[in-house]
């Protein structure tokens, strides 16, 4: 509860910071300090310190898992602001509002990691996505940004409508908004309406799949990620997407076994379609930004394995995956923002002009591809092992490994451009602080790749 309240309050603080100073660097620094405060509050709340005693009527349930995910999300946002904060203030004149919106999104993330009722799920999803429509359209003079924002808004509202329909159906059978329900017993007046439960859950599934951009509900992703200002794409593709998965998992671990028969086919089909479309389409992209948009669809396919296997191993895995994926993607985007040219050719010869950037980018891309000694390897390893543990799903694992091999192709194309092609990649001015930030992030990814327990042990004490 503390995290939810404090993040909302800090959002208000950020909003007002714009009144007192016009200095955008100062506003950015305030935001970084505020995030540190939020991280401290969340960690304190995780260990039961200073919790506000609020009767939440069982609508929120603060588990160690959810709180720990909050910490990961807040830490990722912190790294994001440290690396890309100076680019956020360049997007437009409303720097303070952008930071405020980021805090509101974090409020939504902490609602989603703790919800215990469909009402809170709906509120969390909305608090998380409505600010994103604004961030997408924040580059007001750019037509592509406007187009992306409108598209995202229309399709997002539509998927929210589908979610509401699902919630209404489940409420109709259940009589309350709780996420745990019993299939109506024989003889009860509701037994003829038992079909509404899987139907309602299917509607919510469709809507959540849209939010995490799983195929076949992914059509908005490339356009929106490509059209939005790059700094905000970085935020949308990482923290927000990971939070969507945490919400997804919470819903499914409650219902999975009850409705297993209904899900047995849908989920594998969605996973394979997501992996296929994400990976294969990413191969053909010319722009690195668009390639990353498709790669984020492909990574969503891997994260969906956590839903499919649904055991304790996959819960650890999704935490590791969201940390590894978020940090690496934030790093890749932070470098992308500095590039003058977003195509693969734009990276030609980056290793000569900016060796530190090229080396860090290589580590991030290796992690995204899942090469050993980087965090991405263990993230994928956990996901696939969890599938083997609970389903014996050999075919799924083989398909996933094949697509991971495909993903190596397009990630390595960037590395190839940076190291083995002639050219002089142009970047905007790079401060030494940015370089140290990148080095720290790369070191963190390698540390997680060697010892994933550094992260996961906190789940248990």
């Amino acid at each position, binding site marked *: 509860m503390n995290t*939810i309240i404090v993040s*909302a309050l800090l*959002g*208000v603080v950020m*909003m007002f910071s714009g009144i007192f100073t016009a200095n955008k660097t100062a506003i950015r620094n305030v935001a970084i300090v505020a995030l540190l405060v939020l991280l401290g509050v969340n960690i304190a709340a995780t260990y039961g310190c200073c919790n506000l005693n*609020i009767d*939440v*009527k069982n*609508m*929120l349930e603060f588990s160690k898992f959810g709180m720990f995910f909050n910490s990961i999300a807040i830490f990722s946002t912190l790294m994001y602001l440290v690396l890309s904060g100076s680019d956020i203030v360049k997007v*437009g*004149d*409303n720097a303070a*509002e*952008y930071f*405020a*919106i980021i805090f*509101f999104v974090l*409020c*939504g993330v902490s*609602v989603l990691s703790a919800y215990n*009722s469909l*009402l*809170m799920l709906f*509120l969390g999803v*909305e*608090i998380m996505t*409505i*600010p994103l*429509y*604004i961030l997408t*359209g*924040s580059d*007001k003079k750019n037509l592509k940004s406007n187009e992306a924002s409108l598209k995202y808004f229309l399709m997002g509202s539509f998927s929210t409508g589908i979610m509401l329909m699902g919630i209404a159906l489940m409420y109709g059978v259940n009589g309350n908004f709780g996420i745990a329900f019993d299939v109506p017993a024989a003889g009860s007046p509701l037994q003829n309406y038992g079909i509404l439960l899987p139907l309602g859950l299917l509607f919510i599934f469709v809507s959540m799949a849209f939010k995490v951009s799983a195929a076949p509900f992914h059509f908005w992703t490339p356009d929106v990620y490509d059209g939005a200002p790059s700094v905000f794409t970085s935020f949308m593709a990482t923290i927000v997407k990971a939070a969507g998965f945490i919400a997804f998992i919470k819903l499914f671990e409650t219902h999975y076994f009850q409705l297993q028969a209904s899900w047995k086919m849908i989920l594998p089909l969605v996973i394979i379609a997501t992996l296929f479309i994400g990976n294969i389409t990413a191969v053909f992209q010319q722009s690195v930004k668009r390639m990353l948009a498709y790669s984020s669809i492909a990574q969503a396919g891997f994260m969906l394995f956590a839903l499919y296997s649904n055991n304790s191993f996959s819960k650890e895995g999704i935490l590791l995956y969201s940390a590894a994926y978020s940090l690496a993607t934030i790093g890749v985007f932070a470098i992308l923002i500095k590039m003058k040219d977003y195509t693969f050719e734009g990276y030609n010869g980056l290793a000569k002009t900016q060796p530190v950037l090229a080396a860090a980018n290589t580590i991030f891309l290796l992690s995204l591809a899942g090469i050993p000694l980087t965090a991405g390897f263990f993230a994928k390893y956990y996901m696939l092992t969890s599938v083997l543990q609970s389903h014996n799903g050999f075919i799924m694992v083989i398909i996933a490994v094949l697509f991971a091999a495909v993903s190596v192709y397009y990630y390595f194309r960037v590395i190839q451009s940076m190291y083995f092609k002639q050219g002089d990649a142009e970047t905007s001015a790079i401060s030494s602080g940015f370089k140290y930030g990148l080095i720290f992030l790369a070191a963190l990814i390698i540390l997680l790749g060697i010892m994933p327990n550094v992260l996961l042990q906190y789940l248990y004490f």
Partner: protein
Amino acid sequence: MNLIQILFWLLSGLAIVSALMVLISKNPVHSVLWLIVVFFAISGHYILLNAQFLAIVNLIVYAGAIMVLFLFVIMLMNLGKESDPQKNVWIKLAGAISGGSLLIVLVSLVKQASEINDKEALLGNGNIGLIGTLGKVLFTDFVVPFEISSVLFLSAMVGAVVIGKK
């Protein structure tokens, strides 16, 4: 025939007549205005059923916000002048058939529902639709979502300002 029954028939007649006028009017702006009358008549029914909250929300959301949106769309698409209705007879036929099928489904549903046969609607009593009851639930059982939705509205307002500012 007591007062409530008189009101009921009056409102029903008004709703049906104005709903017909929505369809008959050639001018789209007149259609929208008649639609507002329909919503007012339906809100009157809600009040007869002692559902104040629904009545008010129906007025605010439908007659207020959504109708303004309709009018804006009509203005922006420049449909203000009398436009010819679609001439294609097949489309008209398809519309009539699908609308008629929906009517049959609804009527048969009402006829089959044994729970509501031989029962009168609760007119003027029952407190489930009162604003006071709703407020009590909202501020006791659902106070957490109620408060958290304020964050949603705040961020939406910030967004409106960010998008709307020059």
